[in-house]
């Protein structure tokens, strides 16, 4: 792919956030060219569907698709449910207006209710908080894994209708139950994206950035599913640079990244990354380029030990999320299917 940004770092330079600086115009041109090639020629589809969350990743993806395919060939889908932030819908609509693309709003709440998403999630939480029920709110959090050597144990933070907050370690059974139930949200959204893609003969654009893609921060066959992923090779701070260049509305660029999956507000940092995203970005880059922990410490304000723990966390996630990236495993290669496909 010709649009992978080149590192600004040389072997003699001091490591800093400058390594993630890109020439936004050149990178945009490269991605736009690739999207046209992929959608029109490789996939042979007429346009693209993008699920919009009101965040920077989906907004930049939509802006890139609009540049590549034309505003009349892009559909922005907003898919709120009762526990998603009102800002997600509002900012999704701000984006479609700014880009001039078609917009559809699909309320996925009734589908989730019918699937038992909320009921099953609440039943799983009740395994560790028996009184959890109607009127309660919750989220899943990880302890800080960078400040001390610890295991990535998940906790549920639950708030009662009277405002009392509980912080309880999940059992494997309850954790898996909560995740399996909430994954209905990402999978229902993806199902609708493919519905509209099928009826319009469009392709589905995925929206993960490099942190999310490499570290497995997605739901298999949910937000991890797509026909192409225009920003999966870009670090989060590079996505922001593209967002500025593409004139994504300022309010979207300023919005703190959120999972928008749980009824209590939950940052990506507390659910998955343990570090602010700009720091995580640098640590991932450094890990990918074998930068010494001491050099990263100087650039991030972390101690050497904290960087080493961040490296260990990155390696651990790379290993534990390999399953998410694997396509269905065949018993033998089926040659006639794979001939002529790039991968």
């Amino acid at each position: 792919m010709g649009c992978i940004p080149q590192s600004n770092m040389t072997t003699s330079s001091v490591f800093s956030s400058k390594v993630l600086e890109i020439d936004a115009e050149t990178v945009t041109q490269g991605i736009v060219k690739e999207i046209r090639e992929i959608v029109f020629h490789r996939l042979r589809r007429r346009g693209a569907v993008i699920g919009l969350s009101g965040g920077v990743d989906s907004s930049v993806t939509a802006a890139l698709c609009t540049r590549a395919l034309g505003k009349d060939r892009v559909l922005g889908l907003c898919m709120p449910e009762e526990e998603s932030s009102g800002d997600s819908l509002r900012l999704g609509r701000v984006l479609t207006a700014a880009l001039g693309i078609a917009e559809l709003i699909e309320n996925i709440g009734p589908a989730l209710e019918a699937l038992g998403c909320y009921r099953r999630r609440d039943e799983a939480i009740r395994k560790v908080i028996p009184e959890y029920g109607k009127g309660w709110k919750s989220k899943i959090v990880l302890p800080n894994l960078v400040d001390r050597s610890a295991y990535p144990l998940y906790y549920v933070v639950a708030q009662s209708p009277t405002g009392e907050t509980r912080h309880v370690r999940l059992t494997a059974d309850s954790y898996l139950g909560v995740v399996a139930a909430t994954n209905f949200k990402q999978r229902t959204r993806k199902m609708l994206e493919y519905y509209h893609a099928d009826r319009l003969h469009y392709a589905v654009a995925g929206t993960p950035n490099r942190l999310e893609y490499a570290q497995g921060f997605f739901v298999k066959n949910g937000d991890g599913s797509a026909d192409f992923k225009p920003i999966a090779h870009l670090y989060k701070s590079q996505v922001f640079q593209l967002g500025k260049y593409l004139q994504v509305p300022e309010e979207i660029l300023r919005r703190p990244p959120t999972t928008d999956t749980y009824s209590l507000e939950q940052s990506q940092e507390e659910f998955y990354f343990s570090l602010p995203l700009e720091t995580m970005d640098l640590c991932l880059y450094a890990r990918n380029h074998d930068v010494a922990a001491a050099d990263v410490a100087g650039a991030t304000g972390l101690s050497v030990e904290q960087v080493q723990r961040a490296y260990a966390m990155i390696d651990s996630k790379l290993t534990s999320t390999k399953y998410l990236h694997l396509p269905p495993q065949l018993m033998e290669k089926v040659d006639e299917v794979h001939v002529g496909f790039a991968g």
Partner: protein
Amino acid sequence: MQDIAVTVRDFITENFFFGDGVEHFSNDDSFFEKGLVDSVGILTLVEFVREKYTITIEDEDILPENWDSVHRIASFVETKLGSRLVGKGDTNRGVYSAE
């Protein structure tokens, strides 16, 4: 402690190796370095040990120094059981052997 180690190893053999390849895994090998135990794995192990030995496991107990090998877990369990007996004025740890 040997009984506890055997019990923990059997659990790991069945739940993480699924019966295959465990012969190259020693009781001092690090679960983390072997890529054997992820976040769900550690929760599973903690639940097994908690139920098997009827011990309370606090958040601050769940650290690599207590959980990152078969022997570390056995030692941790033995210490927990020992402190419970000491609390009851009984130092005979043998009554809490695993099997």
